[in-house]
């Protein structure tokens, strides 16, 4: 009998069906991987299992008995614990204090606080499962990898029977990931269940017994990991439908080089995502896509080119001019659609009109004064041209939907003499029609002779738009065959590809 079983789970959010009639089960003693792209519904499903969300339809069974969780606590009490991508720890507490927080079984139940009482227990758990961490250390003093160990220890301390890990390796170095896999194997060897959420094929292959592939809120298939190879998994995850996507054009683009990056190096907060000696060039009228799993240095690359991140080495040329710094890059004709739309793309409390003019207001300034009439006119044009749905030019940018915010960003970045454009995850989280608009504008820009550098995790998007595909993994770029999804998938997972 399955330890945990979901039947017909449907969860709707305004405008999207995140899970659509999902059946899923995991048995005692297995690592069951949930594989899928961003937005495939993996996280929603795990939140339903752990009690954070309640399903709109469908049932959850533990050991064959139906359960209904009202909160994560109910899940924990029933033995379902989740390790979130963003850890749920109190930074200023010690490891031991974090473990006894909310404890209803062990030493934490007493009125008098005795974190010392669990110190030995934590040490023993740590030794047994290869999760070494000092129980008396404060969480803020720990590395990200250590914090994850604390989360897993917390689950083991709560005697979890089902442990769900949401993209656990995203924050780990390869060595740490290997150790994590050993730990997970040991946990299931005792008859517990591990549900491992990932979009990295080789990890799934390395650690899981079975794998359930999700796409667009539905389960595509559940297979034994041993029976599937990485290529098959990649094809299932990305979807066969992709193979019919038409290329935008054939042949190579013969425009001038509008964006040239030579030997670019830049530091990151994490060693694995630092850029080292990156070369890249984009021709006029060309869309070059950078594929890769988030957090492999794409953000650093975009910021280093745009002048937002200090370079340690290398040069960037836009339209033949060497540039360094945000203003220089902008003046040379670089547009930048940042990944963090609301945080960096717009000033949320300013009006739509002001956001459209954020980069160009100097041109129409009358002395120290802004010309509000001109600003208004430009905003009205932008609203019409980009089909922005808003009350009017005075609407606060932050009150608009993600798609409309992105259109404001496009309107601003496309104004003026655009030579090259960086678009970082330009359609992440947008609904289908907004995605279409963004894609249309990117293609239009390329047709007008703008060189577009598209950074995306979405393979569909990349295959639909790109003339060339580069894959970024741990701060390095590799050229990938344009039409070969499997090759791209393997490179994204850090594998090598021999055509």
């Amino acid at each position: 009998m399955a330890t945990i079983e979901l039947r017909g789970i449907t969860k709707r959010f305004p405008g999207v069906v995140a899970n659509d009639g999902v059946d899923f089960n995991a048995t005692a003693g297995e690592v069951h991987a949930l594989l899928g792209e961003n937005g495939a519904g993996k996280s929603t499903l795990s939140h339903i299992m752990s009690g954070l969300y309640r399903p709109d339809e469908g049932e959850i069974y533990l050991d064959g008995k139906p359960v209904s969780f009202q909160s994560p606590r109910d899940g924990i009490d029933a033995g379902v614990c989740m390790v979130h991508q963003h850890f749920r720890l109190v930074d200023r507490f010690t490891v031991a204090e974090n473990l006894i927080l909310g404890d209803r079984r062990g030493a934490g139940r007493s009125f008098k606080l005795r974190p010392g009482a669990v110190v030995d227990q934590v040490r023993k758990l740590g030794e047994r499962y290869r999760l070494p961490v000092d129980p008396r250390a404060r969480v803020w003093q720990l590395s990200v990898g250590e914090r994850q160990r604390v989360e897993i220890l917390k689950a083991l301390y709560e005697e979890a029977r089902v442990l769900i890990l949401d993209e656990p390796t995203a924050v780990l170095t390869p060595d740490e990931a290997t150790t994590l896999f050993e730990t997970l194997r040991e946990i299931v060897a005792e008859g517990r269940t591990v549900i491992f959420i990932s979009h990295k094929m080789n990890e799934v292959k390395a650690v899981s017994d079975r794998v359930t592939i999700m796409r667009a809120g539905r389960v595509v298939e559940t297979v034994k990991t041993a029976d599937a190879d990485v290529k098959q998994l990649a094809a299932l995850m990305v979807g066969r439908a992709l193979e019919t996507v038409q290329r935008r054009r054939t042949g190579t683009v013969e425009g001038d080089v509008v964006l040239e990056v030579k030997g670019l190096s830049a530091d990151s907060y994490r060693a694995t995502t630092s850029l080292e000696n990156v070369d890249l060039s984009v021709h006029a009228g060309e869309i070059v896509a950078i594929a890769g799993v988030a957090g492999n240095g794409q953000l650093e690359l975009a910021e280093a080119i745009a002048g937002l991140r200090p370079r340690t080495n290398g040069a960037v040329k836009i339209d033949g001019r060497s540039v360094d710094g945000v203003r220089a890059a902008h003046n040379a004709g670089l547009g930048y659609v940042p990944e963090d739309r609301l945080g960096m793309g717009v000033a949320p409390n300013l009006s739509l009109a002001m956001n459209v003019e954020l980069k160009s207001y100097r041109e129409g300034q009358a002395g120290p004064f802004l010309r509000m009439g001109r600003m208004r006119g430009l905003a009205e044009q932008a609203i019409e041209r980009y089909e922005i749905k808003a009350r009017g030019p005075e609407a606060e940018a932050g009150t608009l939907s993600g798609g409309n915010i992105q259109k404001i960003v496009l309107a601003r970045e496309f104004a003026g003499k655009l030579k090259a454009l960086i678009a970082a995850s330009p359609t992440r989280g947008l609904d289908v029609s907004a995605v279409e608009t963004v894609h249309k504008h990117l293609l239009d820009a390329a047709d007008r002779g703008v060189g577009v550098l598209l950074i995306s995790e979405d393979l569909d998007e990349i295959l639909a738009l790109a003339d060339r595909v580069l894959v970024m993994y741990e701060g390095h770029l590799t050229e990938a065959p344009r039409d070969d999804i499997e090759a791209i998938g393997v490179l994204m997972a850090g594998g090598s590809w021999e055509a």
Partner: protein
Amino acid sequence: MNHALLVVLIASGVAYGTPLLFASLGELLAERSGVLNLGVEGMMLVGAVMGFWAEQRLTIGSGAVSLILGLVVAAFAAAVTAAIHAFLVITLRANQIVSGLALTIFAGGIGLSSYLGTDLNLADQPANHQFHAFLPSAMQNWPIVGPIVFGQTPLVYLSWVCVIAVAYYLMRTRPGLNVRSVGEAPGAADAMGINVVKYRYVHTIVGGAFAGVAGATFSLAITPQWVAGDSLVQNSGWIAIALVIFAFWRPELCVVGAYFFGSLQALAPELQARNVNLGPTELWTNAMPYAATVVVLVLVSWRGAARRLGAPAALGTPYAREEH
């Protein structure tokens, strides 16, 4: 010896510091749960007027009983005032700064407390009873410790009990750990089954009760009377808020800060009485608590210090479980 300047200053510092201590303990409880309440001044004034009223009018039993009744009524009245703030910022998720300031204006010297005092005809009445130093006068006359430790009112000893109780509760008990987690990381607390809303309500309201007792310390002990306006508590509520920062959100350090600031309040009149002229003494003794707080604020915003000594991480931020 007991009239030496330092001894007198410390002794009156303890007396004047006691309302600061009560109020800052209350504010500390609220802030540890993540709720900033800038309405302390207003809550103190409500406590002062209602405590005085209960002591004057609800004469049942002896003086001691009516004084205790005064304290209880003061605590209750201020707790009710704090509940308004709690409802606005926890349930309705209003801005805590705006709501706290509004509470001080609403309940303070030109608002509710003055209305109540005038309506109940409390002005210009001598108190029926007041808290006195009660230990044997032989003890009070002991050198140095006599006036400082034994020459105080029961409220001072009550405040010491409260400090120990609050410190023990916060740092050594399970509910205390829960409060701190709610103030630091409400999301993590919620995930572990701790009722964030309940903890915040309880600590904001209990914090208000402490402010009420602080107000009653003025109207029943330090200046046993009621006067309209806010001259009765003299900005103590604001100093108490500064004091919580000054004490790094630790109850035991509140004692040090409260008595230090209390001594400063006693310094100007005491110097005057001794014909010592140090220029506009009152100016800088009045400014000192705020100046000291600015210095401490700068210190605790230092990177490493912020983690060890800084404000609860979720202070001032409303909490809602995410489900989009």
